[in-house]
């Protein structure tokens, strides 16, 4: 499995960084208040005398005001109010800081969430340069990213804890979120809105590369799949086209252009399979293709029943799709 980061308390971009700062402030204030309330309670428990059910109740307070106590309560409420107002202000300032992320020269992505995988379209100024991938997003470090968020079926939520807060993807609505990854690394994200049987295994990765490595990756992604070498991989492509694979998956450069499942043109270049559920190894790929229900019960991908030679050929072909 990819070695990844996914921690609200380990921010690697400005958006997550602003939230982290607010978190530290709020944690400090809340801990202080909690400790103060508990201390007051503890002192009250320790200094109050003891009694039992027969002890006469103290009715002296009836009709006579208790100025000392009243001032104490008022002071405590006033202090709490001031602290709350401060936290409200801090929250609003953080909101503003988040909104001020510069989007000059931003990379534009369109993420469409499906049950239970992520479709990612890179929107380029030249339409011919647009490419589609799935479940693994590469971005250059230090460059802002504007992600347009759509949902194909039910509500999902795009959440990469180390980079930014989440945003819901709602059918019928289009929205955007911005972030920037400042450090190289692989940041794990996961769907954060209950979306059905396989909500639990709907992860994705944001891989931040230095700009040159990103450009190399993007150039490779733009290229259609090369013809596989003759022999087993070529036979694997035939199997791909003639089995149920081509009914849902696209491989650019072939006649398989369906959009119901993840685009597989460069599937071998990804670190994981099945929305982060499996490492991308031949054995895992075989297990997944042979019976997806064993790994993600409820998934819409049907089982593909092939002889072991045919399965080897198919997987061999898929491995050429870098």
């Amino acid at each position, binding site marked *: 499995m990819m070695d990844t980061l996914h921690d609200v308390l380990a921010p690697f971009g400005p958006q997550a960084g602003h939230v982290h700062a607010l978190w530290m402030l709020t944690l400090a204030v809340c801990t202080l208040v909690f400790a103060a309330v508990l201390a007051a309670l503890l002192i009250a428990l320790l200094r109050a005398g003891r009694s039992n059910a027969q002890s006469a109740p103290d009715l002296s307070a009836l009709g006579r005001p208790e100025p000392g106590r009243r001032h104490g309560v008022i002071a405590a409420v006033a202090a709490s109010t001031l602290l709350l107002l401060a936290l*409200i202000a801090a929250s609003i300032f953080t909101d503003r800081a988040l909104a001020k992320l510069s989007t000059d020269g931003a990379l534009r992505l369109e993420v469409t969430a499906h049950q239970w995988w992520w479709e990612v379209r890179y929107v380029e100024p030249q339409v011919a340069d647009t490419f589609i991938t799935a479940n693994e997003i590469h971005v250059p470090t230090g460059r802002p990213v504007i992600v347009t968020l759509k949902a194909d079926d039910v509500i999902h939520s795009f959440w990469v804890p180390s980079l930014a807060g989440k945003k819901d993807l709602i059918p019928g609505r289009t929205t955007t979120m911005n972030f920037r990854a400042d450090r190289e690394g692989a940041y794990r994200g996961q769907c954060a809105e*209950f979306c059905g049987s396989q909500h639990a295994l709907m992860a994705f990765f944001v891989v931040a590369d230095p700009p040159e490595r990103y450009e190399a990756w993007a150039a490779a992604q733009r290229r259609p799949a090369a013809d596989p070498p003759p022999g087993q991989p070529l036979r694997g492509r035939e199997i791909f086209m003639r089995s149920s694979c081509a009914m849902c998956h696209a491989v650019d450069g072939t006649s398989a252009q369906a959009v119901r499942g993840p685009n597989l043109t460069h599937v071998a270049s990804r670190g994981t399979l099945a929305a982060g559920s499996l490492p991308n190894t031949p054995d895992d790929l075989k297990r997944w293709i042979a019976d997806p229900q064993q790994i993600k019960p409820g998934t819409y991908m049907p089982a593909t029943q092939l002889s072991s030679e045919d399965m080897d050929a198919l997987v061999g072909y898929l491995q050429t799709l870098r």
Partner: protein
Amino acid sequence: MDQPRHTPASHLKDGPGRGSREAAALDATWRDPPGLMGWLAAVNHKSIARRFIVTTFGFFVAGGLLAFVMRLQLARPGSKLVGPDLYNQLFTMHGSTMMFLFAVPVMQAVTIYLLPLMMGTRSVAFPRLNAFAYWIFLFGGLMLYVVFFLGAGPDVGWFSYVPLAGPDFSPGKRTDFWAQMITFTELSALVEAIVVITTVFKLRAPGMTLNRIPLFAWAMLVTAFMILFAMPSVMLASTTLITDRLVGTHFYNPAEGGDAVLWQHLFWFFGHPEVYLIFLPGLGFISAIIPTFARRPMFGYTAMVLSLIATAFLAFGLWVHHMFAVNLPELGKSFFTAASMLIAIPSAVQIFCWIATLWSGRLNFKTPLLFVLGFFFILVLGGMTGIMLASVPLDLQVHDSYFVVAHLHYVLIGGAVFPLFGAFYYWYPKITGRMMSERLGRWNFWLFFIGFNLAFFPMHLLGLRGMPRRVYTYQAGLGWDTLNLVSTIGAVVIALSALLFVINAVRSLRRGALAGVNPWGAGTLEWATESPPPPCNFYAIPVVHGREPLWQGPRAVAEGGAPAFTHVSGLAADTREVLATTVLDARPDLRVNFPDPTIWPLVSALAVTALFLGSIFTPWAVVWGSIPIAIALTAWFWPRHSETAVHLSLERKP
């Protein structure tokens, strides 16, 4: 039915105490008829409340067992104990049970028992409607569990977001059963709210002015008003969901002009006040327990009342904080941040007033007080995480993660369940006549407190480390393994503590020390009568002179120095006659004839159940199902000669 023969112009009036002819007549009048039919036809508030409390507690145990299985599944990564379909049903049933079948109903059930005793009267208002509310609740809850046990439980979360819960993505009738359960339970809650409001306003002992009623009664009054305004929103939501699924309306279909976010607004407009419906009664319990165990009246009564009211109003202005991740205008969201933070202020007022009361009191460290102290720790911690979640940027990181699961359990269990357990230990002697075991009570408390923190504190960290909610499994190596295991161990400890409670409650029924009238030395009126109370609650209606009637007694003779009245008498002893008083000053106002036990609330509830169940399958059930309901309601209201004869004679010769 074994009722005394009604003779017109009866001479027996209430007033004399136990042992007299009048007291025997009162007992015969107010007790339930014998046998199975008598049990089904009972309308005495204590009978209804006892079975209501037991039923809600049964749902609590069921919901807890569901959660226990969930925790077993999540104890290890990649566990195959429970698959996704069953897990989704488990967490949907757990949430729905706890929110709709336990948390709000149990508070109403306890109120239905206590309120007339606290107010110094013989019945709740509308006793037959009260019985109807119980039956409707029971049938709705049973329906949900029958469906679950048959493998068709709802599986889209207790909040049932569309489009996942819509006709396209939730095939079959699972979600329809959930939506109809909402209809059952919200009807029950609305009816009980009407009963509570009317009881508090009109059925108080003479002299119990509105600013002398116990803080618990204020909490339940405010809660009841909140129910009136909040429940219609979810009833509308669930009804539109049913019509979308059953007859093809387009409320939630974006392609035809609907909007998935409409559901969220309608649901959370109810859903946020819902948690305050659960929280406010808990505050009422605390306000009842602390004065008794601090041996002094509550500090800051007026501030407490105003805080309850302020909380109720503010609670309706917070709902969008459940929707911060939706693309709504940012400025609007900031308003809800401010409101969500400011609602902490009235709660803070209450906390500080309680601390002030404890500070200046003399403490009796019995089990009810222990649970109150547990409340302070857990609820305040939950309130702190609530402040964190109120901020939009912070929420956008931890929304829909285990951080929220931790928060909600800290505030709901800390804010409502701990006070509820304290209340059980406090009022168990009154209800049953026996004391619960103090030793078992302490074990119960400490196991619950430790188990709870062990189970739920790690969830804060899990959320911060990226673990989303509502996941049936997770992969190894993400840093979530150990925390999940610790949480499951905590769940085991909680289960043990619940078991201890049940053992304590059952054993003490036979073996507990006899409680006597006022074992805690408390000051409110329910402690003025026997334990358990006689069927008529009080043989003579007390007159109240202060906020703590038993502590102040008839000493309050401020006006003129003449001795004050202690009781009023003159209500009929051989028919169910109740004294209604004015709203503000509780001056005697009306003598109202309350109904005898009758089977028609149960029959009406069955008829309504048939309509609700039928309308899951066909819209025509609404038409045809109305006929049995009309018949049942007609029979319900049809006057009976014997009753009318007695009422007329009482009008002529009161």
